[in-house]
């Protein structure tokens, strides 16, 4: 009996020592959960977040939610049970992602949203977001001036469940809708996807062959729109506007094939999110709920600066 007791005490000591030594030697782990890795922009965001986390001395791993809130939820379940210490999240859905964030919060894991906003101000620890609205106000003004206040246009939206889609569309329409001679003949989602946007515009142009412009909710879709217009031989007649500041679109602006885009700064968002996680580990708790990151308009007049 005494031997049995001694064995139990020794086992307990080994376990306690084992646990405390793990805490001392293991680096905190940061999970980067990204909406999709099927878009170069989000790949850059995720890799930049991981790189910044590693630079700060943490382990970092990227999880792909494949634009699917269910996969995102599975990712959260896995990383909560795997003992991650912070999550840098690019959400899939402004409403659908909230429950996953709350699960992490309940588990004591801070979540820092990057680029996409969720519709709750008490779930994430902080949300670092592009100022999509202001960026698209600037694009809207450029759009009105380029079209000389009249013409028919198409809007290709991003994912309908994403707040960025509506912030961009809202900023754009807050300007353009004040000019009654600008007629939107179609508004359809291209899911932020190049191929989908190309197909959407091809279909729209069958019923509306005489459009003057296309406003796309991101640059991947602007490139898809360009492909559709090029295939129809209209790439010089129809003015294209994007959003993101992707390298291929910046190049197309230089070549005068795309009119304008809004330059976002994914690296700044990723760096800030990683920095906030670091500060959280060091005891900071008073984070601003939303941190807008400036978006810059790029057009022919300032393309030399990019």
């Amino acid at each position, binding site marked *: 009996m005494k031997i049995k007791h001694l064995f139990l005490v020794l086992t307990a000591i080994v376990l306690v020592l084992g646990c405390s030594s793990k805490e001392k030697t293991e680096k905190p782990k940061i999970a980067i959960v990204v909406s999709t890795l099927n878009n170069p922009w989000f790949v850059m965001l995720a890799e930049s977040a991981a790189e910044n986390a590693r630079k700060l001395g943490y382990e970092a791993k990227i999880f792909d939610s494949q634009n699917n809130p269910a996969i995102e939820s599975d990712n959260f379940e896995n990383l909560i049970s795997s003992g991650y210490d912070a999550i840098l999240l690019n959400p899939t859905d402004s409403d659908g992602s909230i429950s996953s964030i709350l699960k992490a919060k309940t588990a004591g894991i801070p979540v820092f949203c990057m680029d996409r906003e969720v519709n709750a101000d008490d779930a994430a620890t902080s949300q670092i977001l592009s*100022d999509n*609205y202001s960026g698209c106000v600037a694009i809207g003004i450029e759009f*009105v001036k380029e079209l000389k206040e009249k013409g028919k246009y198409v809007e290709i939206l991003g994912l309908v469940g994403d707040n960025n889609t509506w*912030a961009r569309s809202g900023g754009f329409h*807050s300007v353009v809708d004040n000019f009654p001679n600008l007629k939107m003949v179609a508004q359809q989602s291209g899911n932020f996807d190049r191929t989908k946007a190309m197909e959407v515009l091809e279909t729209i142009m069958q019923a509306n062959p005489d459009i003057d412009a296309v406003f796309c909710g991101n640059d991947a879709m602007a490139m898809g729109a360009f492909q559709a217009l090029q295939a129809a031989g209209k790439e010089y007649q129809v003015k294209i506007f994007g959003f993101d500041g992707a390298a291929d679109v910046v190049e197309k602006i230089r070549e005068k094939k795309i009119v304008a885009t809004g330059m976002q700064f994914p690296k700044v968002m990723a760096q800030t999110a990683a920095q906030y996680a670091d500060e959280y580990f060091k005891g900071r708790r008073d984070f601003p709920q939303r*941190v807008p*990151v*400036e978006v810059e308009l790029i057009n022919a007049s300032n393309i030399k600066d990019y």
Partner: protein
Amino acid sequence: MKKKYVYILAFLIIAILGYNSFYFKKLSDIKKAQKESFDFKAFADSIYYKGILKSKKTIALTDLISSIKANQEAAFKKYGNRLGIGNSDYFMIKSTGKIIDIKDGIYTIADEKNGVVFIDTKYIFGNDLRDASGLVKLTDFKTNAQFNKVSESLNKIVRNEIPKQTKNVKIGDSISFSGAIKLNKKQTLFTDLLIIPSQIKLQ
């Protein structure tokens, strides 16, 4: 037989109580109702008439430029407003000058102390006025969409007010004006400044 009626009665009572004890509503309907319950127009009215037009924080453009030239960091901190991360700040300024051209809603002004500046009376959109005023905090609203609605309501008021104020204004007139400007920290030249007006007055 009696027992059967008692059971039926008990079942009906439980069913009625149960049915009335809870009900379902669409989450989207509740959120919509919450958003719409805020009177953005009234809020923007008070920001404009009681805040922006009566603000004592509006700085003379020439003083702002001298302050920035003397110490950019301190001037941005004291007079500017930026809500997040970026190189630009918004400032609420005032000045005087003579109108030398009016074209497509843009007033070209020979400012008395700052060379040529432009007042854009046509494209009064975006967050310039809201942010330059410094009167609205991001944390006052639950989402960015609501926060941006403040700008939309405020801009609408200003877009209605400016034409009234400039009804009799013509080239050659001297005016005093106030409004929002956006300055970048990388900016070293202060020429061709574009002002989103909050008020224009004939002198």
